[in-house]
């Protein structure tokens, strides 16, 4: 208790001293401002630089895939590998079965391909692709509605993936488990291109622009169940 007592005394003294100083000495005032600025700058650095670095973990794709190279080989553009099934559902990332159609055996002298064939084709293992545009389970996204009905192209949302020669590093949000592409590269959430972000607001913006039908009594926009399940 005596220690507590002492501390109390000390702090009281300190406070008294400081408050006296504050009025008398403008130098101390500057000292306070300095600390304020230090704190301000430190937090800016943390928030803008350290935080995004800490938030995302980087993951390599299992196979180095060259979209550009494949685009040259196939006849039907993106739909050659990413196609609609008969029931209207979208196949998404190709299964091994589709890859095997061409890559039953190693075709060229690319070591990535060799790795792919030996690790996956021969072992009949599905490739555990990391999907950049993977949306939460609550999202119902119909490729058919966008591509077939609204005649949108892939680039609008996915960007010029077809021209990429290598897959970008997959950055996973340590809290949510989603790819950084969903929130966007820019930590502030700013975007330049239509494909820079895949948040609900991005869907909503486009729906607002292109859809003149108001179906939600709450938001006077598209009803929730258009995009949710």
């Amino acid at each position, binding site marked *: 208790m005596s220690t*507590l*007592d002492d501390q109390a005394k000390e702090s009281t003294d300190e406070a008294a001293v400081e*408050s006296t100083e504050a009025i008398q000495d403008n130098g101390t005032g500057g000292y306070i401002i300095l600390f304020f600025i230090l704190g301000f700058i430190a937090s800016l650095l943390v928030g803008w630089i350290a935080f995004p670095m800490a938030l995302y973990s980087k993951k390599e794709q299992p196979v180095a895939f060259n979209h550009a190279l494949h685009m040259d080989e196939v006849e039907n553009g993106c739909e050659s590998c990413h196609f609609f099934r008969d029931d209207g559902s979208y196949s998404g990332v190709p299964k091994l079965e589709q890859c095997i159609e061409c890559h039953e055996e190693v075709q060229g002298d690319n070591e990535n391909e060799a790795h792919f064939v030996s690790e996956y084709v021969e072992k009949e293992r599905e490739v555990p692709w990391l999907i950049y545009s993977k949306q939460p389970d609550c999202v119902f996204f119909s490729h058919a509605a966008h591509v077939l009905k609204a005649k949108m192209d892939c680039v609008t949302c996915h960007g010029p993936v077809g021209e990429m020669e290598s897959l970008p590093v997959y950055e996973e949000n340590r809290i949510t488990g989603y790819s950084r592409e969903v929130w966007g590269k820019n930590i502030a959430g700013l975007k330049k291109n239509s494909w820079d972000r895949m948040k609900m607001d991005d869907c909503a913006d486009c729906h607002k622009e292109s859809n003149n039908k108001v179906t939600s009594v709450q938001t006077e926009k598209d009803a929730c169940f258009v995009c949710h399940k």
Partner: protein
Amino acid sequence: MDSALIPNGVKRCSMGKFLLWNSIIGLVLLWGVFALLLCWIKGLNQTNMNNAYGFALWIWADLAVIALGGGAFFTGFLRYIVGKEELKNIINYAVLIGFICYSAAQLILGIDIGQPLRGWFIFWHANIHSMLTEVAFCLSCYFIVLCIEYIPLILENRQTDKVPFFHNLTHNMHEVMAIFAATGAFLSFFHQGSLGGVSGVLFGRPFGFREHIFGTIWPYTFFLFTWSAAACGPCFTILVTKITEKIAGKKLVKDNVIDLLAKISGWMILTYIIAKTADTLYWAFVTAPSTGFILAKFYTENPGSVYGYWILFLEIVICGFVPALFLIVKKWRRTPVLLWTAIILAVIGVSLNRWVLVLQVLAVPVMPFTDWNIYFPSWQEIATTILPVAYGILLIMISYRYLPIFPQEAELNPIEPEPEPEQEAKPEGKAEEIKTKAGEPELKPAEA
């Protein structure tokens, strides 16, 4: 040993006694925190709520503490807008009580929602048609106002007041306090009302549903709630002040202040209860019967007849007209027993009203082939409801000890000789005794 922090001109109990009581209340608080953590970690299955009782003890507690905390806005309104100067002697305490009530309400809401981490959706994704949204916004804003009103009080502590910045801030805030008080009254009007609207808009629940003003905007319970909070809130302020005086063993606020507030309360309660009676009659004979419900369906044939006509009688007569008369008639109001009775009844009345409009609404079966729902809270619910009470007591204890809450205290309780501000040698335990429950062991000062 903390005498440097204690306001000038008043006496406080010894540090040891203070700490002991703090720790006793602290234990209760910890019990509540434990229950709170259980609810957060394991989910709301820790409660006895169910699909029929989505709202239960917590929501009642919310509504009740906000009604009781209404003393803050209404006293502020009377003091700063109407200009009842005497009330400056109780406004600090009213603000403190309001602050406690509102922070308690927010804490309880934080436990009550199934997904606390998504709580901010109510602001960000607000649906303005929902009464709860209005409650959330106004309640949060008013809580900011309460903080602003509470800040100068903290800064008036003897030590902080020495800092010129804080001293000046206190001064300047007092200067514009009327603005805050007005804003507070504005916000309170809406969130108190919206709480009344919570059950009033439920057209699927004939027990709670009320006709709306202009047909669509707000149900009449909106106004009844605001009115009842303004009427009964000050009673709670008086009640807590009186209890504090009992515990402190000394007079803290002059009688004329209490008398004025009590009188105003009395008239407010009377007008409220007349309106409430009218509302009840209209509901019982017009609104509810139009959907096939007669009054007897709401008050009879339920298990153990818990929800009987007695509730109406208790709420409107015993806890309505009776306290109103006690407070209005000067002679009765100045009889301590009757004053105590009146303020306690008023507090019970408004709490009962909130209970009925949350719990009984859900208890009444709406589908004819279903039965009454009866609910009793789990210990976790009770503990988390007691938690803010314990927190409130702690905050009052600390605030009372270190802040000049009662401007008239020094005047009413002159002490001789004044203790040296920074000197700590003298044990203070004997200088003053808090009269607590009989049989309380004499509290010895610590080994200082």
